């Protein structure tokens, strides 16, 4: 919402400075977004007269002008404007001046060998309008040498406020003035209540016809003014409209725009001679069309409210007038419309057709119903003042709804919600000056909201009005009482796990990324997602269309982006949500990491102490286990499975599970086919940890760690080497060895794997180091031999292998 300072002062009697007004507007909730003054940019431009206009010697379409600047000798200017002529009074820019519409700073130039010492400007070049058919052509008596902006009345602040959707009353300058007056910044001037007598019956009738469907128009006022003389509106009106960015069209149309911004009351004018028969407000019919005043054509249907005559649709009610019945400079008889429309229907139609107009903006927020007919009177007065003519009587269809809205208001509500004590006098004054009526006495009164405040719903709204007008700064800072105990744990298990996984991974050299929750449909498909219920209906781009089923696609793409910038050895992780379906339960938290190139735990790339090798599946496994350990998973009890998802290399990946059905993590090399499809280069390894798959930790219980059970006896170590089939997995062998004598065997380490000479072709040699920890007595040779025999027997049985001789 934009307006000029003088426009505001039409309605507000005030001595306040611009700064005070701006400050107060902001502090009562009408936030000032910008104050501009067109004169600031136009300061250097002065009025000048063309003394001579000679043909340019070397160019047909150029002229060489001698221009009187009001001081010193006339200057020479080369000009291409068709209207450049001797005697023209226009606006001159000189070398050094910045031309806003061209975004250039003038300098002395030579055009086709003739020197030019400035420029006569068009309106577009000065950003005054889109006019560019010629240079500005002022009245002959315009004072040469004077500042153009000052002479043209452009030297005025334009205030723009960001209006919140609850304040339709401030879509007009008058409403803004009312708020400022209530806030003590001046006195609101009475607006005209003139009722103009019609001298004849309105020859065009109006009816609302919605049959048995919901009425989309509540009421409609209409009047004809005949014998008007339309034409350009006067300068003051044009200036106001251009100041707030509207284009003057003709007096009748400008009048409607003016009242829209002055009173927040949109109107429409029909050229009565182009209206055929009477007007009916009704639902549109499929197949009907309207050519709007904005130059666009719209198809209507029965969800759209139209004003029609015998010819068909003439207007989109409350949104946009039609071109065929619009007013032009030739209009002689005009029909003025002031109507009330259903807010929701206006919003729905505007959205459906994609039309944004100043009328829609106001009607969908709710205009003052009680001002419908006064607005029509005001419009009539303006038409008669600007264009003359003779008014008909007014006619009205429908009924203006009763806007009475009375709220029971206990004064104590101010203290209860706002935490501040104001006097009753202050409260009453604030409400009354905004147009509220107060009746009754005592602790609770009845407050009637004015018709222009549809946002007032209950007590809380009145509290807002009171503190808004009296001042939020008067509410004292009040400490929130402490809860009475030392605060308990405030995070949920899931939150704690995310934090622990995050910090654990970062200590392993990972950089934390935050990537988009949505990915392309192709990526989603490749990683097991792509369900239609997780695809956005209105994605911002095809790359961000589907909710992610995994963090891998985002991180793999990120790794590649870094590689493309020259940083190929990256370790990235993210802790975030994935979406398995569209329910709250289908949203899971995971911690996912990727290592690329040689980004190993010990460091990446070449180094004097030894070059890092490419990342491999065991790096990913180590990361996964470290993060699982950090979140409290029993890492030594997890089982390794090899059924990782298809996104991983089938032979170089695994799952860490707690029981066959509960996967806590997957890890491995990314499948080469997938990398190829995604156009991503490896080597790339990754893991994904399902943070919520781990069962909740046991409830309260003690925090004691129990006594330490360390033996004083020396442990004994024995090495064994077995020949086993190549397909035998290490875990089988280790488990067999560990299980041979659980009370004695404290640790089994696999320290060598060998294939090749000396070992049969389909076999491998696996060497383990077994630590025996005696508890009661030192082990004898016989004891140790007995355990060794058990270990050998267990391993041979489990693996089908033999002790290597």
């Amino acid at each position, binding site marked *: 919402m934009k307006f000029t300072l003088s426009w505001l002062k039409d309605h507000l009697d005030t001595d306040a400075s611009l700064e005070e007004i701006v400050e107060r507007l902001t*502090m*009562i909730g009408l936030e000032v977004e910008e104050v501009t003054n067109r004169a600031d940019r136009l300061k250097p431009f002065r009025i000048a007269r063309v003394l001579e206009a000679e043909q340019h010697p070397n160019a047909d379409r150029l002229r060489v002008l001698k221009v009187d600047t009001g001081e010193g000798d006339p200057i020479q200017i080369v000009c291409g404007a068709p209207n450049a002529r001797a005697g023209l009074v226009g606006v001159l820019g000189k070398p050094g001046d910045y031309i806003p519409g061209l975004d250039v700073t003038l300098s002395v130039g030579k055009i086709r060998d003739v020197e030019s010492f400035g420029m006569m400007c068009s309106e577009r070049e000065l950003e005054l309008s889109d006019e560019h058919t010629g240079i500005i052509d002022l009245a002959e008596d315009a004072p040469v040498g004077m500042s153009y902006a000052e002479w043209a009345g452009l030297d005025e602040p334009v205030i723009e406020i960001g209006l*919140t959707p609850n*304040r339709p009353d401030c879509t007009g300058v008058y409403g803004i003035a009312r708020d400022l007056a209530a806030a003590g910044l001046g006195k609101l001037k009475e607006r005209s209540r003139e009722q103009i007598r019609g001298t004849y019956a309105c020859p065009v009738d109006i009816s609302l016809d919605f049959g048995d469907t919901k009425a989309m128009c509540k009421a409609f006022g209409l009047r004809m003014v005949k014998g008007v003389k339309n034409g350009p509106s006067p300068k003051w009106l044009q200036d106001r409209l251009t100041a707030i960015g509207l284009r003057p069209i003709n007096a009748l149309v400008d009048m409607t725009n003016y009242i829209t911004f002055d009173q927040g009351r949109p109107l429409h004018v029909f050229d009565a001679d182009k209206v055929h028969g009477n007007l009916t407000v009704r639902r549109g019919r499929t197949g009907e069309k309207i050519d709007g005043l904005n130059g666009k054509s719209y198809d209507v249907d029965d969800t759209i409210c139209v004003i029609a005559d015998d010819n068909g649709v003439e207007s989109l009610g409350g949104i946009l007038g039609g071109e065929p019945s619009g007013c032009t400079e030739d209009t002689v008889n005009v029909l003025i419309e002031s109507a009330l429309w259903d807010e*929701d229907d206006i*919003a729905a139609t505007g959205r459906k057709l994609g039309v944004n107009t100043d009328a829609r903006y106001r009607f969908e*927020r709710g205009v003052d119903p009680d001002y419908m007919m006064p607005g029509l009177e005001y419009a009539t007065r303006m038409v008669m003042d600007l264009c003359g003519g003779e008014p008909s009587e007014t006619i009205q269809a429908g009924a203006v709804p009763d806007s009475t809205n009375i709220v029971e208001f206990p004064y104590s509500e101010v203290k*209860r*919600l*706002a*935490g*501040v004590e104001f006097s009753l006098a202050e409260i009453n004054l604030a409400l009354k000056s905004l147009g509220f009526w107060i009746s009754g006495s005592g602790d609770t009164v009845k407050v009637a909201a004015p018709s222009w405040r549809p946002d007032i719903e*209950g*007590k*809380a*709204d009145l*509290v*807002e009005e009171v*503190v*808004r007008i009296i001042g*939020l700064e008067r509410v*004292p800072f*009040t*400490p*929130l009482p*402490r*809860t009475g105990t030392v*605060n308990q744990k*405030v995070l*949920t298990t*899931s*939150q704690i796990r995310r934090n622990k996984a995050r910090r654990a991974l*970062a*200590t*392993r*050299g990972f*950089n*934390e*990324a*935050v990537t*988009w*929750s*949505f990915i392309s449909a192709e990526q989603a498909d490749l990683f097991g997602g792509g369900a*239609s*219920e997780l*695809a*956005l209906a*209105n994605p*911002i781009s095809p790359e961000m269309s589907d909710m992610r089923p995994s963090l891998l696609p985002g991180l793999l793409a*990120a790794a590649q*982006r870094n590689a493309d*910038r020259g940083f190929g050895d*990256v*370790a990235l992780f993210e*802790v975030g949500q994935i979406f398995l379906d569209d*329910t*709250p339960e289908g*949203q899971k938290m995971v911690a996912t990491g990727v290592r690329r190139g040689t980004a190993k735990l*010990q460091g990446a790339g070449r180094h004097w*102490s030894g070059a890092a090798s490419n990342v491999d599946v065991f790096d990913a496994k180590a990361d996964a286990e470290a993060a699982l350990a950090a979140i409290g998973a029993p890492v030594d009890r997890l089982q390794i499975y090899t059924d990782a998802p298809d996104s991983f290399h089938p032979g170089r990946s695994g799952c860490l599970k707690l029981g066959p059905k509960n996967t806590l993590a997957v890890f491995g090399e990314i499948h080469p086919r997938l990398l190829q499809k995604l156009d991503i280069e490896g080597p790339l390894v990754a893991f994904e940890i399902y943070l919520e798959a781990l069962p909740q930790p046991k409830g309260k219980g003690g925090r004691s760690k129990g006594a330490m059970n360390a033996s004083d006896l020396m442990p004994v170590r024995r090495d064994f080497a077995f020949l086993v089939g190549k397909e035998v997995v290490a875990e089988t062998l280790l488990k067999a060895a560990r299980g041979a004598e659980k009370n004695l065997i404290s640790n089994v380490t696999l320290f060598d794997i060998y294939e090749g000479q000396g070992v049969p072709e389909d076999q491998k040699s696996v060497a383990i180091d077994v630590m025996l920890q005696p508890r009661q007595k030192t082990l004898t040779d016989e004891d140790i031999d007995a355990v060794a025999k058990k270990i050998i027997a267990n391993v041979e049985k489990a693996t089908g292998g033999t002790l290597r001789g």
Partner: protein
Amino acid sequence: MSNLDTLESELLTAIDGANDEATLEDVRVHALGKKGKISEQMKTLGKMTPDERQVMGPALNGLKAKITDAISARKDVLAEAALETRLASEKVDVSLPLRPAAAETGRIHPVSQVIDELTAIFADMGFSIAEGPDIETDELNFTALNFPVGHPAREMHDTFFFNEKTDGDRLLLRTHTSPVQIRTMRTQEPPIRVIIPGRTYRCDSDQTHTPMFHQVEGLVIDKGSHFGHLKWVLREFCKSFFEVDDIKMRFRPSFFPFTEPSMEVDIQCDRSGGEVKIGQGEDWLEILGCGMVHPNVIRNCGLDPDVYQGFAWGMGIDRIAMLKYGMPDLRAFFDADVRWIQHYGFRPLDLPTLFGGLSS
């Protein structure tokens, strides 16, 4: 006697001349071994007269002791020299650079760090952390929050929608963290004090808007918390978060469908130096929206607004991170450029606490 003098000087010269332990050992054997010069002389003592023995005994023993000491001293000298030689040969270039430790190169994303900072501050004021799903219903994202169907306020949200289901229901990506207010009030008995951090989504993209961003919401519901408390909570938060002793704040009336009265909050800042400095200067910077929870919202959660009351506020986590830590561009938050993460990220063990300072 002169024999002994000659022997002594001969042996001492040999000891001094021994440059390694082997040579020194040869000298020792030559002097003190079974057949050594001194041992041989000792053997002659038995054949001497008592008078001769009286003289020669002490002389020989004195010589033996002197030579033994000299050998021992020489041994120490040689051992010291040998160690020196070894040390000299063992010298390395300690200026060789190491590989940086993983725990020193890993980084926490600023959004995570700032959420931890928020947690530390609000936990101290008795708040817990609540969360909710990103995929929401229209009811929880809008209707229950007092956004009437078709109201223009809904359009300010640029909502991402999913496809309509067969029953006409249409899910959406939450446009703010406020639906979690409803979820919390519907499941938790007051008094309620929670903050709600999380991802939010709007179809909007430019330098200061990304289609996904992070918000944190606060909610207090009980029987007496009012706007004065809200002002205090937000001021304490701003001081604590921006780590300044004092900060001027400006509460401006505004409009949000789910609060009444509603306010926007500006904090004092200084823009003169090219970067924004919080807590000094004469400019204002808008950082959050807040208000008393609208009676309709309280009612929509099954509570009586004449009994229960409270306040809520919301702000952008990315935005306050940018203000505090100086990132110029929001879009970079989600680009995963390691150079950016290294520059703006946090060391893994720098956990923000109030007792240790949030960021120091």
